[in-house]
């Protein structure tokens, strides 16, 4: 690849090898005036990720190329210092999206080379690419559209047919996964964290605000009223003393842990049946909670369905693929409505108490018809689109 291309795709192995060969010391990357532009661009990268999209403009001259190239390792240090798993995912997604925008315009040969860096071997055909199905599912798996399902693909002798555009989309997933998995960076040097601290703090704060506003997966107070039907149903059963199937017990417990309930709180939920075995239950919950070293995510809707645990599916269920997604979504909607209410209250205070009841009514029924601006916010506030 040309150095210019390396600067556009700084996460390919060739790019990191190239950066290494430049021999730029950590000290100079952090302090030298020569790299001021690289640092600034690095900070910009991370901030743009927060907004959802990293812009990439054309690069003119060696200096710009070098800055762009070095801004990536710098941005990564910053992300490492922010040290928030959710933010790391956000960042990886933004980088990957930016890569996709560029990849769509690249030649087939370039795409094939690029794929090889991610262990994807594909062959060019006249009108499409042909790739091994195991490589295909590794990256198609996180994509929700049924058109990506292996079942709906043409598969022959182990090879799946994809268009060039689809291939680029799969590469986006590959990039996202690579960046995501390159974190956390072990042992960040003292000087780096000292340098990044002020920037990291600002971004983190902004991110926290976003999260609070829009839910994300870092749930605040647990709101059982917003649980998906399957979980509510299981909870009702438990409290009615009905024994749950093992798989549902697992799904419910891990769900509750994930939304932030403590082991004790969950233990109390189970403590209703006459043959309640506290010790055994505690053991099971702690096992799921990761006392034994594993942390479990609750199963996705698809798995829930497989085991017959998807009970009481409602309209919102159509839009999500994971019970946590359901909850996330409702928390988001609720917070947004509440904010609207608050805004209204403020307005009302200003405008006097006229038309009080009417305004309230309108606010309640308004979930679907919000303005464009808000919809955009919602988008950037959502956690990455990867399904379980």
């Amino acid at each position, binding site marked *: 690849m040309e150095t210019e291309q390396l600067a556009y795709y700084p996460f390919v192995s060739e790019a990191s090898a190239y950066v290494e060969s430049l021999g730029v010391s950590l000290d100079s990357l952090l302090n030298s005036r020569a790299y001021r532009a690289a640092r600034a661009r690095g900070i910009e990268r991370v901030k743009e990720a927060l907004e959802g999209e990293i812009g990439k403009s054309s690069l003119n001259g060696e200096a710009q190329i070098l800055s762009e190239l070095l801004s990536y390792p710098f941005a990564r240090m910053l992300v490492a210092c922010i040290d928030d798993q959710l933010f790391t995912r956000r960042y990886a997604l933004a980088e990957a999206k930016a890569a996709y925008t560029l990849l769509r315009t690249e030649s087939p040969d370039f795409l094939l080379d690029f794929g090889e860096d991610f262990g994807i071997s594909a062959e060019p055909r006249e009108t499409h690419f042909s790739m*091994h*199905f*195991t*490589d295909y*599912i*590794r990256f*198609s*798996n996180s994509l929700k559209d*049924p*058109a990506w*399902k*292996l*079942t*709906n*693909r*043409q*598969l*022959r*002798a*182990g*090879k799946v*047919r994809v268009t060039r555009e689809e291939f680029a989309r799969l590469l986006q997933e590959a990039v996202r996964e690579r960046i995501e998995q390159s974190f956390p960076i072990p042992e960040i040097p003292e000087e780096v964290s000292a340098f990044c601290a002020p920037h990291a703090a600002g971004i983190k704060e902004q991110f926290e605000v976003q999260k609070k506003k829009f839910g994300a997966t870092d749930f605040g107070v647990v709101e059982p009223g917003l649980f998906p039907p399957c979980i509510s149903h299981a909870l009702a059963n438990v409290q009615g003393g009905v024994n749950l199937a*093992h798989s549902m017990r697992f799904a419910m417990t891990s769900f509750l842990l994930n939304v932030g309930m403590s082991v004790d709180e969950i233990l109390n939920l189970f403590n209703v049946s006459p043959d309640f075995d506290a010790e*055994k239950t505690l*053991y*099971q919950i702690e*096992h799921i909670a990761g006392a*034994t*070293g*594993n942390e479990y995510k609750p199963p996705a809707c*698809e*798995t829930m369905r*497989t085991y017959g645990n998807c009970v009481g599916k409602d309209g919102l269920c159509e839009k999500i693929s994971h019970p946590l997604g359901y909850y996330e979504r409702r928390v988001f909607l609720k917070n947004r409505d509440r904010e609207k209410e608050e805004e209204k209250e403020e307005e009302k205070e200003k405008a006097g108490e006229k038309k009080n009841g009417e305004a309230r009514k309108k606010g309640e029924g308004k979930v679907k018809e919000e303005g464009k601006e808000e919809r955009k916010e919602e988008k950037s506030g959502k956690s990455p689109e990867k399904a*379980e």
Partner: protein
Amino acid sequence: MGYTIIKKLAETKQTPKNSPNSETMDKRTIRFLKSRFQQYYKTAEISLPDHLPNREWAFILFDDLEDKIMRRHKSFGSPGEALDYLYGMAPAHVYNSTAYYEYPNAKKMNEKNWHGAELIFDLDADHLPDAPRNYAEMLENVKKETFKLMDFILDDFGFTENDIELVFSGGRGYHIHIPHPKVLTLGGSERREIVNYVSGRDLDFKYFFRDVAMDGEYGTGSKAFKGMKNVPTKCMLLGHDSGWGKRIARYLADYLKSESGKKYKKYMFPELRRHEKVGSTTVNKLLRIANSENGLNDILEHGRLDFDVRNFKEIASYFMQESSENFLQRFGASVDEPVTADTKRLIRVPGSLHGGSGMQVKKLALSELESFEPLRDTVVFGEKPVKVNVSKPFTVQLKGKDLRVEEGIQEVPEYAAVYLMCRGVAEYGYRRDQPNPL
């Protein structure tokens, strides 16, 4: 790790389902079975897995059956060690991991350092839709399912016979191991996608039928030009010669054929007639296709659905969607999803004995599957008479012979004695508080 143990036991189904629990086995029965198993392991050919030192092994000993204790986290550096253990302990159940670990004997799963795992399919009678009348019929159903799965594995996934290992589980089904380099590092959700593929779940026919502009070989030439409203198109079945496309083509062709073979026209294509756009003109045209020389071939070999029936794309997808249950039953393979999705599964070792039946867990060549009869080909014990006390009347066909035992004390050949005891319907010898009647 009591919880894990119980969970694993529940999942691995170490006894055939309708056998009473081996929990109640008495001491002498245990001693007898152990000695028979030991004798078997003395000379048995065990097919040890590749990368032996990286596999975790697990056992359930006869003495532990009652407490359901599984001894896990063992590993063997060499074949000799493994074989010595089997002979020395004569376990009732023998498993190894489908996974390769750096430290297979670490006590905690996350300390083992997972490197990869074989792709596994478990075909089990429990997962089949039709309830069989007896054990032999059940095994026959599972065999059919296995053939369906093999078509996916060889044709769709492109594995060769050398890439796979087909094993009779010693109980109610078959295991297929695929230790191919391309699959080893797949995660659970990717493996689930593979199960979905072979079962046809999420199959949406609209992705297979497409209108394409007419040109070339089958078109009428490109009379159409830009801006013209009705560009001539033809309906094609995409990927008609491989994967699910191939199965759809077969289904459609078979349907046309069998319907057009009916005696009276008014009984033909009842499913299609439910579609608003299908009238007698359409039926006549379909008939002509079905009876013409090339009609069905055009579907099977060229994916051509562009007969002069209008809206055929729509009609065909409608028909497939309506028949999807029947279609999937014919072509989809029902495998046990959690088994395939689990990248740290324990699975029975080929060559070992199944403690719930006394039958051999047996590796087969693909060509042997057709004529394979588990109840004949996996019985390893001899004819020596053994006294047993049967708790309820029981019928089974073993080694090609019908065996019927009544309640009470009697003598049966050793192979039958082992089977009955493992299934939990008989005890060794006679009860201590009863005189020996023989």
